[in-house]
């Protein structure tokens, strides 16, 4: 009889994380050195850029909100094994629908109600856009990655067309976006950090709702069952098609919410780069969080710190702010690498055990 040594999961997790961190640290330090800047000063600047003052940390939270919302949405689609790369376009369409609500609801309507309607509109917009990709996948047989990717670019061209065409500012059409919303339609903010309590409450609620649905409801179980084994799900009379569409609706809804949040809470207008790549970044977040609901907001916070912290790099050290993206990418890649080495090791051990070798 062979005894399989079970590793303590917490310890092995910590081991993996430190291994990944070490790898990324070496890689980034090397890259910064190649670019001719002092690496440790760069790190210090990122930390100071993220935590240096109340307003800077407020910025971090502002990035954290859409990132977390998109990650929440992606958790549903990843659960059923869909690669919802279209989340970026879903966020854009959320912003467009939200903006449409602000634009066409008459000013006599109370501001709070208008904001509420805009949120619902944004949610619907994102969900509709996701549903398109979902239909293409389930009925058209188009891979969700290609469908989503194509829809992203279509969404991008819709927003450009709106900003330069029908919704352009009086007289001038420019990349700076549409006309600003009137001040009552902005989400109210704390004075010191300039972040909105409404947005934070909504985001935290989204995390809790996502956790609840995925862990404690039939829907969550269905998504998981189909995601892990499509064939056996059929035997339990689960309908993959409807569950896939449902997951897409959830993902699009959360992304749309994030889009509207960017309009009313951050930019107060529609700009061409309203989604700021947060949808794509959220894919990184969820992968790095290993598809865990509780880890995703933390990873999102870390990513937000990197993003905001690196903004001042060009001014202080004359290096490009895209360093944050390099670190984020390296982190995900290293995590995937460490993961696969672990599974390979485990498989080899099982194989050896089953053959009576140790």
């Amino acid at each position, binding site marked *: 009889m062979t005894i399989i040594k079970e590793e303590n999961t917490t310890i092995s997790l910590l081991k993996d994380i430190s291994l990944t961190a070490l790898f990324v640290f070496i890689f980034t330090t090397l890259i910064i050195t190649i*670019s001719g800047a002092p690496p440790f000063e760069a790190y210090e600047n990122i930390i100071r850029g993220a935590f240096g003052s109340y307003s800077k940390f407020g910025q971090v939270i502002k990035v954290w909100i859409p990132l977390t919302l998109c990650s929440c949405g992606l958790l549903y689609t990843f659960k059923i094994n869909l690669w919802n790369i279209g989340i970026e376009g879903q966020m854009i369409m959320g912003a467009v629908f939200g903006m449409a609500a602000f634009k066409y609801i008459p000013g006599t309507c109370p501001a709070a109600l208008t904001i509420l309607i805009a949120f619902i509109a944004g949610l619907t917009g994102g969900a509709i856009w996701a549903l398109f990709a979902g239909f293409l996948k389930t009925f058209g047989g188009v891979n969700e990655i290609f469908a989503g990717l*194509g829809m992203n670019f*279509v969404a991008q*061209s819709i927003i450009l067309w709106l900003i330069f*065409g029908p919704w352009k500012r009086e007289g001038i059409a420019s990349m700076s976006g549409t006309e600003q919303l009137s001040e009552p339609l902005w989400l109210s903010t704390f004075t010191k950090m300039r972040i909105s309590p409404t947005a934070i409450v909504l985001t935290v609620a989204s995390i809790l709702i996502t956790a609840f649905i995925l862990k404690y409801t039939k829907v969550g179980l269905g998504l998981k069952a189909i995601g892990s084994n499509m064939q056996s799900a059929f035997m339990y009379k689960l309908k993959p098609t409807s569950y896939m569409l449902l997951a897409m609706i959830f993902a699009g809804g959360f992304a749309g919410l994030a889009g509207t949040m960017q309009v009313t809470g951050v930019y107060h207008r529609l700009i061409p780069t309203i989604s700021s790549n947060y949808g794509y970044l959220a894919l990184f977040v969820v992968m790095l969080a290993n598809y865990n609901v509780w880890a995703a907001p933390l990873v999102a916070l870390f990513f937000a710190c990197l993003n905001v912290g690196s903004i001042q790099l060009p001014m202080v050290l*004359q290096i*490009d702010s895209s360093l944050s993206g390099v670190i984020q990418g390296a982190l995900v890649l290293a995590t*995937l690498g460490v993961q696969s080495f672990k599974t390979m090791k485990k498989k080899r051990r099982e194989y050896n055990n089953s053959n009576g070798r140790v």
Partner: protein
Amino acid sequence: MEEFNLTILFASVIATATPILLATLGETISEKSGIINLSLDGTLLLCAMTGFVISYETNSLILGFAGAAVVGAVISSIVGVFSIYLNQSQVAVGFVLTLMARDLAYFIGNPYSRIQGPQVAHMPIPFLEDIPFLGSVFFNHNFTVYFSMLMIFACWWYIYKTPYGLKLRAVGEHPGAAFSRAINPRKSQMLYVIAGGLIIGIAGATFSLSTKAGWGRPQGAEGTGWIALALVIFGGWNPIKAAVGAYLFAFLQTMGIHFQSWFPSVPAQVFNMAPFPLMIFTLLIINFFQRESIILLAKDKPLLKTILRKLDNTAPTSLGKPYKPDEY
């Protein structure tokens, strides 16, 4: 006068299509063997940066192109190793790499932004350039353009007319069957992903050394990789059809300026989105024609059958599904 304009238009279509065309060909080769290299967009930028920086520092265009090709090969080999040997999702790895390579390009290339650098010299082909119309359209460019045109036929010939190409297609269609015919699917997939990466690298360098000479943020090559990815599908994984797609796209892009004067309210960027709806449409058609009811319908209607066969662009069957050998 009219004819003269047309010549310039077509000549500029041929010239602007060059990097997109090369990227499309590189991706076609890799996808034919079954590997989706989603890192295309970022790789192009990183290679554009590498090509420019190396040429600038060493004053040698050849080294620039070579360096870019090596970088392209390295990035695609990462996709290859992760998806073929480490069992990770191709899409995940490719996607991470695309964003990371882009940021890496901006980061490392930052000191070289907006400076005058070397450029590929104009090199009309003697005698051939004197052919009226065709000469100015096809043979009055620089080396990269001729190279890309040659590559279309080289790729097509390799894939469809050589025994190696047959093996390449076999691996993409049915790696298990290829394995039983003494082909190592993993090894050949790895080989073709790297080969595709080399071509993609050259495509990137073509951007910064010829088509949109120079480096900066943004460089102007952003988004081309996604377009190339769409064109591979639009071309039905066939180098010649994909090349037609690339030229069509370049035509649209060149005409964008004219379109804009006709529809002033529509920004030029919108026309660049054309390949994406077309890609989705192509995929829909592919799937539609593979439905059993359609095949049955066309069974004894020769005309319909011919049309279907002409329109049928089947994807390599094992595209995106890495081959798993049976040993553990």
